[in-house]
């Protein structure tokens, strides 16, 4: 520590060094290689790759897979909205009515997500299965036709995505709601605001940072997901993640897969940009 004491200004860089080097090597550099690969072309016979500034990979990818791209963002958007509608009242209830049980109640939200991602998705497969209890009852009630299915539908995929990313929505919401000074709400009511009005003018605006963080944290992984579409859907529900995954690992069409990865990232970044602008939360989220 004597050395550190003499070189105090170096200390932060020594602390940052190893971790940032790791991120530079295994996060930044790979993105560079992926970018390089997205501009390569594949020799159809030799199956070798050559770098050619092949920008057409991008336009080809969009032309061929715009259905899956649109579907990904549609599913992710719907799932994010439903997750918000489920999580907000739940987080509100824990934050304002939880009392000393708050931490235990939070455990009920986080706990389920320590069951392996794939296993909880398979559990939904069991629940929604054609021969399962739920589908059978719905058929008895004629909500579902005789050969109607729950599994292998868009609804199943969206429901799976909603479920799997719910804590990313609920936890930031809880944190922002829990920080609200209750006296502000009481003050609004003392000033003759109705409960609804106090909620709309005080609670809701103060919880915006949570809504902001929660929607982003849910939307981003949801847009890139392929597991729900794979296990709960059919190729008709394939998302862009499914295309990237199979092109990389099954078809070894690396340039197209790399181009699609960048398109996915770019769209997400643009959407985040628009969203940040619209909410103007630069200050609110610190």
């Amino acid at each position, binding site marked *: 520590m004597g050395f550190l004491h003499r070189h105090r200004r170096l200390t932060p860089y020594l602390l*940052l060094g*190893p971790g940032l080097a790791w991120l530079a090597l*295994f996060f930044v550099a790979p993105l560079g290689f*992926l970018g390089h690969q997205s501009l390569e072309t594949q020799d159809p016979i030799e199956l070798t790759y050559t770098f050619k500034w092949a920008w057409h990979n991008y336009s080809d990818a969009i032309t061929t897979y715009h259905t899956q791209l649109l579907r990904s963002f549609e599913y992710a958007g719907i799932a994010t909205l439903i997750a918000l509608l489920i999580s907000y009242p*739940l987080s509100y*209830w824990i934050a304002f009515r939880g009392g000393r049980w708050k931490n235990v109640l939070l*455990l009920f939200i986080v706990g389920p997500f320590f069951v*392996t991602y794939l296993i909880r998705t398979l559990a939904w497969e*069991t629940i929604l299965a054609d021969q399962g209890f739920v589908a059978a009852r719905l058929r008895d009630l004629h909500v579902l036709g005789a050969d109607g299915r729950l599994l292998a539908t868009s609804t199943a995929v969206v429901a799976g995505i909603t479920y799997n990313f719910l804590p990313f929505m609920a936890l930031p919401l809880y944190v922002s709601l829990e920080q609200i000074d209750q006296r502000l709400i009481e003050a609004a009511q003392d000033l003759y605001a109705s409960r609804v009005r106090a909620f709309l003018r005080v609670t809701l605006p103060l919880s915006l940072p949570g809504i902001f963080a929660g929607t982003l944290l849910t939307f981003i992984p949801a847009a890139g997901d392929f597991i729900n579409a794979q296990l709960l859907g059919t190729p008709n529900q394939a998302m862009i993640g499914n295309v990237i995954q199979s092109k990389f690992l099954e078809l070894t069409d690396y340039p197209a897969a790399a181009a699609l990865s960048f398109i996915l990232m770019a769209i997400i970044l643009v959407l985040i940009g628009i969203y940040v602008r619209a909410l103007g939360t630069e200050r609110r989220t610190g």
Partner: protein
Amino acid sequence: MRSTPAKVFAFARRHVLTLYALLAFGYLLLPISVVVLFSFNHPHGRFNYTWQGFTFDNWVHWDAVPGLRGAVEASLEIAAISSVSATVLGALIALALVRYGFRGRGATNLLIFLPMSTPEIVLGASLLTLFLTMNVTTGFWTIVIAHVMFNISYVVVTVKARLVGFDRHLEEAAMDLGANEWTTFWRVTMPLIAPGILAALLLAFALSVDDFVITNFNAGTTVTFPLFVWGAARAAVFPQINVVGTAIFAVAVSAMLANVVWQNRRARRLV
């Protein structure tokens, strides 16, 4: 006297939020109950989808399925190595960010934030591209590298949250009383941030055990538990998978409960 329907309506109105919360909890816990329940199922076919009868066999012979034990061991080893490494690297970054002023803070924060806002599939794919270009054979250690990479950011965020509320006067007091920097760090700083570091370690461990997408890209012939489940999902779903899933769940929840209890006790002692 109000009529019964009116009373029911008034009750529902007063407790609508509570009812909603209970329904939401039910929804959250439903698949988990299915996982736990079906770990005791006695299936006759290859698929564990319908209830056939109760048995403890799956728990007693949890490793009867070829490859399952190896996959679980690989997952635990990878999680242990990667969570400890990521916690060390991430905690150092968090210390630097909270305790020191330096040039490049904004860039550092961005570099920490970006991996968390990049879809996992892009993280996995880009790492695979790196390994392919460098002719690195993917396997156990490439999985470790990947897990350390995506865990660093989560550790930084978790430890930072703990460090922000930290009173620097305590360290200054220790130094005024003659402790050198080393002693101050281990006797004052470390005990205060220990819960944050432990929480980060547990989170990193859990994320590592659970990761499928990034691992799937960089695993080579190594099979971790989620990869095993993925492979099994296409051919046959064994109840033993539910046994392991239930066990991981039970351990994680116990660890979290213990952490909550421990922090409450410390809070009482420090006050």
